[in-house]
């Protein structure tokens, strides 16, 4: 950071009141990450492919239990809450998306995906959402939030990220003179030309923003009922922030528990529980934000898919390609894009983390770019966010939305 930007930062921090500034172009990208490598073969079930049933004698979702959405595909029965969204075209999918990383490592693949990097070429630096946010002119302290306790890698490098669980969390608990304590913190962190200084200054800005919001009665609308866990409450808080029009551009939320090496279950069981949580959470969000339907897009990703055949522990091991989901008014949904590159070859080589599964057909960066283009038309320089990547449109988002 240069001296000049430091000074302008301090000036910003000193602005006393931040009114909620309504903006016409506001749109929020809600990024849901399914941590652990979700088995999307059981989420978007290839009911028309016998090989799937043959290789998953115990784990396959029977066609009669699944929700048929096309000739080839059906939704897992636990996806019922999103059936209407798919059928009326608000929910769409791209099949066999992934990273070109072949380690089969959760962390490597998550990092590569969240950084928007490739095994080829140099790292672009920071996370892909961080790079996008750096391009945005508004210095809103609430341009990006991560619901939970840890900042995801995708937001690395963003000018300001708030990690929180509830809006009301944001207050300084000083029994003495609060203004004096804030002033001291402003001086201490203002003088730090480091990420720590940046972190401190963002926190101080946040106090100001929140002060203008707290105490409003803004429960879920239209009878929306969020699942009662961290995922549900995270979505509920994101909806509050969107309704408050604070300039929120990106909200990140994790849903874990997808590393189903062991007793994955089929129509019911471990994975079905996770799918149900995902579907009911997103359905509640959609209902709650009914009056704001054009102002958000949800993108659901995971680090990799899983192999088509089941292992002896009635689970599935790490694969490559997976189905990416997107939900919102700008999504051209109701269909599954991409082909069906299932391989059963048992050849073990460095290009596949073991046999059997979807190969990667669409680089995830192409889809991320498409989503950014659809959410923030004309406001993003994609070549900077994903240097040297093929960013040909995928057809997931409506053009010029």
């Amino acid at each position, binding site marked *: 950071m240069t001296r000049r930007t430091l000074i302008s930062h301090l000036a910003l921090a000193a602005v006393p009141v931040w009114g909620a500034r309504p903006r016409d172009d506001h749109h929020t990208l809600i990024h849901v990450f399914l941590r652990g490598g979700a088995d999307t073969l059981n989420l978007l079930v290839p009911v028309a492919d016998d090989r799937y049933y043959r290789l998953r004698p115990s784990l396959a979702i029977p066609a009669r239990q699944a929700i048929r959405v096309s000739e080839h595909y059906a939704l897992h029965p636990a996806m019922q809450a999103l059936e209407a969204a798919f059928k009326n075209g608000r929910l769409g999918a791209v099949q066999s998306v992934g990273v070109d990383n072949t*380690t*089969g490592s959760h962390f490597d693949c998550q990092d590569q995906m969240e950084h928007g990097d490739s095994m080829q070429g140099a790292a672009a630096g920071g996370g892909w959402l961080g790079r996008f946010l750096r391009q945005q002119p508004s210095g809103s302290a609430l341009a990006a939030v991560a619901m939970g306790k840890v900042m995801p890698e995708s937001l690395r490098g963003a000018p300001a990220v708030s*990690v929180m669980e509830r809006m009301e969390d944001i207050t300084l608990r*000083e*029994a003495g003179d609060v203004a004096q304590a804030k002033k001291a913190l402003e001086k201490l*962190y203002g003088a730090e030309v480091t990420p720590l200084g940046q972190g401190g200054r963002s926190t101080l800005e946040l106090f100001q923003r929140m002060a203008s919001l707290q105490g409003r009665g803004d429960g879920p609308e239209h009878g929306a009922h969020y699942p009662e866990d961290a995922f549900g409450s995270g979505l509920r808080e994101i909806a509050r922030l969107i309704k408050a029009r604070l300039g929120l551009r990106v909200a990140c939320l994790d849903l874990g528990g997808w590393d189903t090496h062991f007793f994955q279950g089929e129509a019911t069981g471990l994975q079905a529980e996770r799918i149900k949580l995902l579907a009911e959470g997103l359905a509640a969000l959609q209902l709650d934000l009914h009056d704001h339907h054009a102002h958000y897009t949800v993108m659901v990703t995971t680090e990799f898919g899983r192999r088509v055949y089941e292992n002896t*522990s009635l689970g599935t091991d790490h694969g490559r390609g997976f189905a990416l989901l997107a939900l919102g008014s700008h999504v051209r949904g109701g269909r599954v894009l991409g082909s069906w590159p299932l391989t059963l070859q048992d050849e073990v080589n*460095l290009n596949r983390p073991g046999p059997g599964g979807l190969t990667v057909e669409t680089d995830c960066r192409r889809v991320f770019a498409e989503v950014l283009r659809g959410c923030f038309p004309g406001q993003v320089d994609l070549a900077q966010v994903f240097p040297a990547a093929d960013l040909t449109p995928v057809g997931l988002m409506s053009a010029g939305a």
Partner: protein
Amino acid sequence: MMPLSRRQCLSSLALGLVSCDRVMTQVYRNALGEGLPEQVPLPPAGGEVDPDFHLLSRATFGPWPGELWRLKRLGQEAWLEEQLHPDRLTDTACDWRAERFESLYFSAGDAYEWRKPVLRDEITRHTLLRAIYSRRQLFEVMVEFWTDHLNIDLEKGDCIYLKPSDDRDVIRKHALGNFYDLIRASAKSPAMLVYLDGKSNKVRQGTPDVPNENYARELMELHTLGVHGGYTQRDVQEAARCLSGWTFDRNRFWALNAGESYFRPDWHDAGEKQVLGQRIAAGGGARDLDRLVDIVCGHPSTAKFIAQKLCRRLVCPEPPQALVDRVAAEFTRTRGEIRPMLRVLFRSPEFAATRGQLFKRPLKFMVSALRALRAETLAEMTVVEPLQRMGQGLFQHPTPEGYPDDELPWMGTLLWRWNFALELAANRVKGVHVNLAELRRDLHIKPESWFATLIGRAPTAAETAALQIPAEPSHVGLILASPAFQRC
């Protein structure tokens, strides 16, 4: 330290019977090595962190009042040797606080009789109390290091029942011992067998069983060689074959060791294996695991990976290659002995040159604040909860790589650090007792010397100006909330 007299023992027993923990520890603080010397020299006055304060900040969870002057009297060499041989340090005061948790004494299989909230509470508080009060501080620092390295999330499967014995028999048993022994113990640990699915890694003869590769992969990627350590997918699969048959089943009612892991020959792939270019002959059975551990631990990438990780945790985020190489060479020379690596590391000029460059993760921040203010606590919910908000709930990292060392992932939760600092100094954290005036008297310092005492150097002009706040709790709270106290 002064030995306890019979009278002191008896009276402490009597006090213990009426369960006056606080009174007891207050009375015996001096006798148990937590007290302050009669004459405390002035706090550090230089513009750079005092070198002895620096060693204390890294090799412990932060200086306990008085420990700086003890170190200065002993000298760095003698102090370090003492810490490297924790058995030589009496830890009675800590034991009194931390040995109250019964669920930690059970074998893996027998812990199932405890309720989950009790287990979660006890292992978490035990860890916190040891970190805050143990005099074997370097040992506790290494316990934290290996707990991350061999991360196990209590919330996965049955891990909550199995982690207490893993903490005791794997992590704490080998924290300053030998790396090969540590990995071997971890490979057979019921908690690890459940956490990374080794438990169900089976290859039955005459069936199309495919091994479960989860543990084998993390063993190479995270525990030994590192992700770019030069292994292939084939190596992972071969390692999984070596490990097949090692399992855990607490319902073996006929077995005397139902609480332990065991080897099932009928689940083991008996064929020949080839791992990292080394051949493991067919028919090795249970011994395949030992061979595999020797192969992966002995690989040159492992020495580098562990040395790099130790330096990142204890020296600086981008450790100089020369230092990493020397620590790695020590690993290779001693075949994985942990103590000699730490000796090389802490005695190095590179270490001495990194004062104030390391970011404190939430646990370290919180514990160093509690220690610095000589807080009296039993680490109940009011302490555990803020740590979770700061992002480092103990034994809760969901994925096997453990909590990150980097600074950036923790930037979104500074608010919780500030709030904890302010409430702690104001003695407003329930279940935690702090007395600033008393501590100041015992340290013989003036109110304006708090900064130097807590940070280990004189404040800059800007820091002095920012902290011009007459109310002592606010002043001290803001020092703990300041950027200087977020680093060490």
